[in-house]
């Protein structure tokens, strides 16, 4: 039977299923899971472990938060400790898009295009108030900015702050790591 670990809200299937018995899907009521799927889950867990520890961000700064993103990659904070310090300039080689800064209406199609250029599985981190809901630039009838990154790309982690400190970004990356390890992600 699938062990349900509700502590962190993550549902984990057992890594081994020696009897090849059908496993009850802990999420569904009566749905059964094919044993083959469970065996594949072992591989999936391994791959997820790899993905979680190798989140290469796209070199992509929008505004103020980009400087804190750079600071997080620099000596004092060093995102590379968690394997997330390999900033890739090409979207084709990046895993996580850190949306660092205000998204203007002029920029939003570009961001969407970059997101589409990234190979899946991919994740997005909304860094800073602007990418959460417009932040300090939000006011009625604001014409220039996109109020929230989630209007453009599916966002996995929101990091509040204006700008968030590098520690906050690292905390966000660690959160994302947990999320990836658990195998949860948006499709597409």
């Amino acid at each position, binding site marked *: 039977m699938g062990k349900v670990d509700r502590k962190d809200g993550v549902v984990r299937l057992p890594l081994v299923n020696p009897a090849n018995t059908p496993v009850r899907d802990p999420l569904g009521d009566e749905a059964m899971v094919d044993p083959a799927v469970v065996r594949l889950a072992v591989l999936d867990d391994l791959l997820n472990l790899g993905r979680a520890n190798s989140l290469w961000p796209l070199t*992509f700064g*929008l505004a103020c938060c980009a400087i*804190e993103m750079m600071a997080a990659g*620099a000596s004092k904070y060093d995102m590379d400790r968690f394997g997330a310090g390999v900033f890739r*300039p090409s979207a084709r080689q990046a895993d996580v898009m850190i949306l660092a800064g205000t998204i203007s209406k*002029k920029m939003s199609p*570009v961001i969407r295009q970059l997101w589409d250029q990234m190979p899946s599985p991919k994740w997005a981190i909304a860094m800073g108030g602007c990418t959460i809901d417009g932040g300090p630039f939000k006011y009625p009838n604001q014409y*220039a*900015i996109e109020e929230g990154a989630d209007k453009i790309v599916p966002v996995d982690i929101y990091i509040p702050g*204006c700008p968030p400190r590098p520690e906050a970004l690292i905390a966000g990356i660690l959160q994302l790591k947990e999320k990836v390890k658990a195998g949860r992600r948006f499709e597409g």
Partner: protein
Amino acid sequence: MTNPPRELSPSTEGELYTLNMGPQHPSMHGVLRLVLQLRGEQIVNAKPVIGYSHRAHEKMAENRSALQFLPNSSRIDYLSGMIYNLGYCQAVEKILQIEVPDRAVHIRIIAAELNRISSHLLWFGTFLLDLGGITPFLYSFDDREQILDILDSVTGSRLTYCYGRFGGVTRDVDDEFLERSTAFIKLLRTRLLMYKRLVTDNVILRERCIGVGVISKDTAFRFDVTGPSLRASGVAYDVRKAEPYGGYDRFDFEVPTEEDGDTMSRFHVRIREIEQSCRLIEQAIASMPEGDILPKKMPKRFQIPKGEFYFACESARGHFGIYMVGDGSDIPFKMKLRTPSFSNLSAMPETLRGTMLADTIAIVGGIDIVMPEIDR
């Protein structure tokens, strides 16, 4: 020593093609987009496309009171946020004729100059990063972190400071702040020597910078290029000297200039400006008076009187002007932010013409632009 501009024979063979750099490009400093027309690797035409981080600061200024706009000010140019924040305060003080206490004047100068150093250090790092030297970037960030820590201890933020208040500053500084600033400047002087050995004397850097991207006096004049980029062309124009504000006339500092107008000159000017900022901070610390940090008598509401006003200050990138029109209410009728990088970048098409693709990076990196400041 003057360096003649590097001669490149204009190539006329082969087809033109267009290369689009940005808005997402590792060395476009955020979201600048350059549409380059190239022949081989030589640039025939360069067209900067800006506005990718237009955040409607000016519209917001017309829609909220002068006080409410205060947090916006440091977000215009986040690298010299303190200078912009204090500059905006000083503009309103000038309009409302508010007298700033001496202690606040000194604190402001320390904070602004620390911020200027941090901005120059960040430029130093990213410029080297653009040229492919990755390590100096991390060293300069290391030094910059110390400034951020010092400013953090008194302002509570690392980047987008909101430290100024109309009439003074938010919080008083303590002795520890002053001691840390003094210690940092001492350290920075030794670090500058190391940078000179490691970076400035490096033969590859010199090859990449000398004679590259010459902005002549005439070009600078026509585009109103200001700041270190102008001073590198041999014009000793610094708003802090030309129209002293915020007590800068009480202190002794020089305006460093270079003659050649190339990227190397801009490099030298900025490094020498760091030294001048150190001097300013030392003087301000040495002569720090006791007293209040906010004036005793303050207007109840900050109403912008009818009429138009102009205030200029020197940011890390050049002449930052605030043009404000009031109509008697506390919401400005109009606020124009004259930002230095806007003008500096507008000179780029002329400067880039005829250079190599790799020089583009060195030149655009060398004038030190901050995109949200250009786009506002």
